[in-house]
């Protein structure tokens, strides 16, 4: 799926929420590294895709009507066998059917479990006065409790990306604490710049969440992605 076809499809269906599979297609083409995620429509397809990607895998519900997948029981992690995958597929379908029966369900996304690293988040939102704004922070309690995040107005320059990563109080975590290796900070800066470019190219993107992005000593990858479009295409 190309960027335009993803956006066209959503527009023609009058949808504002992209599925995870669509969101990742959009991001991948924008140059943001994402964990490969493929759509399985049946439990058999899910099992086959899991085998192809390699265990352990994660399964997540794919529906244009569900923004917060884990709230409806739509996420199963760390599945190590074909049997576990098949059961997880059924469990997800059942849970979604009972908790959000009217949701249009396209299937289940199968993705390989990313290896552990430092979790960060990257976001894009729109300010009423200044337009698209990129956000960066460390994942988990850093962002939720401590609100330790930085912002920059689109378009970002390289130095903006450099500064917003270093501006958060938790920056030493990225440099490596308690014997941990430093993460690839340049890779995080690249993601911020690519998100800024994406926002410039597609003003119809209203919100974008990469939560989490996992940072390693060599590279970083978005594990989950959520894109929301404007109700009406802004001029």
């Amino acid at each position, binding site marked *: 799926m190309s960027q335009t076809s993803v956006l066209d499809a959503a527009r023609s269906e009058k949808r504002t929420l992209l599925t995870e599979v669509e969101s990742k297609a959009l991001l991948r083409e924008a140059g943001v590294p994402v964990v490969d995620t493929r759509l399985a429509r049946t439990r058999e397809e899910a099992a086959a895709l899991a085998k192809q990607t390699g265990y352990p895998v994660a399964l997540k519900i794919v529906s244009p009507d569900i923004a917060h997948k884990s709230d409806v029981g739509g996420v199963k992690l760390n599945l190590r066998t074909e049997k576990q995958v098949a059961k997880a597929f059924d469990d997800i379908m059942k849970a979604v059917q009972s908790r959000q029966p009217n949701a249009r369900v396209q299937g289940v996304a199968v993705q390989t479990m990313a290896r552990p690293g430092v979790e960060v988040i990257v976001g894009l939102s729109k*300010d*009423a*006065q200044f337009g698209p*704004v990129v956000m960066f922070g460390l994942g988990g309690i850093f962002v939720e409790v401590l609100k330790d*995040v930085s*912002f920059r*107005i689109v378009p970002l320059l390289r*130095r903006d990306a450099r500064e917003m990563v270093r501006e958060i109080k938790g920056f030493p975590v990225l440099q490596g604490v308690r014997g941990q290796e430093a993460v690839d900070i340049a890779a995080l800066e690249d993601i911020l710049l690519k998100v800024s470019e994406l926002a410039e190219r597609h003003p119809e993107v209203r919100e974008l969440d990469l939560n989490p992005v996992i940072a390693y000593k060599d590279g970083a990858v978005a594990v989950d992605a959520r894109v929301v479009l404007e109700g009406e295409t802004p001029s």
Partner: protein
Amino acid sequence: MIPDLTRKLDRVFNPKVIAVVGDKKANGYSWLKSLIHFTGKLYSVQIDENEIPGIVELGVTNVKSLMDIPEPVDFVVCAVPRKVLPRVLEDCIRKEVGGVTAFTSGFAETDEEGKRLQQQIAERATAAGLPLIGPNCMGIFRPKLGIRHGVDQYYGETGPVGVVAQSGGQATFITTGARANGLRASKSVSFGNAAVLEAADFLEYLGQDEETKAIAMYIEGVRDGRRFFRTLRQVAPRKPVIIWRGGQTEDGARAARSHTGSLASSMAIWDAVARQCGAIRADTLDDVLDYLKAMVFIKPSTGDRVGLISMSGGQAVVTADAFARAGLRVPALTERSYTELAGFFNVIGGSYRNPLDVSWNFDSTDLAQRLLTILQNDENIDAVSMELGVGAMQRRWRRDPAFAEGLLDYLVRYKEESPKPFFITLFPGKWEAEALEIREKLQERGLATYPSFQRSANAYRRLVDYHRAHAREA
């Protein structure tokens, strides 16, 4: 957008003829009195027979209509009720005036009818290409030409400070406050509800204005944030821009909506804007004035290592705290400096690491001169800051005025000749009047003083941040 705006604003800020429409006794003829020192020709437009004698008494020519003025009018101040404003604007357009300030309030900041009326006058002015400032504002201040929006403002002088303020009150406080700190204004504007011209227009104009060397802004909200951001990114590298944002808190934001009808973005977003553009954020009027002084009076630098001179041991401790708290460094001097200091620094109770504590033992300007020269030559130090004790200073003044004057002369000369930034802390204590006298002597000759170590340190921190921001690569 108004086409050819720079040329049009040049005409507004350099008028030969000004007309005030609708000034009246109930208002104390405040507009006409504020403009009484205008270097060009001033007219009043007033149809009310009861008001005219008071106007004539002021020596101002009154006419019944803008159209009756026998020459081109460059700038109009409109102080008429809101329902009359559209009619006066039509006259302004027909008369092809240079620009208009609409003092009139009761528009987007009040009710739906006000919003509709504001929309209507904005569309009309924009279509006619008329630079409309306001409504709900005090307009321009151009002291050099005697154009004021309040009788408390000064005239007949000019300086390096440009002011862009949504609020007329803040424009007055910033310009008069800066004047009290030795800084005159080149051009200042308050633009209220920003129906046609908004912050970005004036920022762009002052950004290219050669008289203006530093810009202070008071903003409650911007209409086109994208444009403001782009403009700020262009102007800030050329000259320092200080942004004081009103409505930072929820309570403040609510007040801003009813003041100028402005919508507020979060402070985190404004912070990002300032950092990205390399502008200087201020939270209070004191901040604005302190940072203006730093940007105009103190030599540019990206160096954060400060050499300090204090007047007592306790002051040495707290001045070091203040500068460190501002994220500046107070490093040890070089061995060479310490060797030199050991040769003459035998003050009882004094000490000479950094800060150098002189325990107020200035018998002659000689000691000050030697200490300051050592700091000037020390490679570990980027900037020099000195405490001047007002109590001791004023005692010396009474006993030995020549010494006191000589010391101030030396400090000014040092500021001019040393390549390093130099500024002074002058804590008034109980000697407010004496401190003011010393401050004025120094600031009139371009030497910045601050009433506390922390304010000295914070201001210098902003100076370093500003120059670092514009030294960074893209």
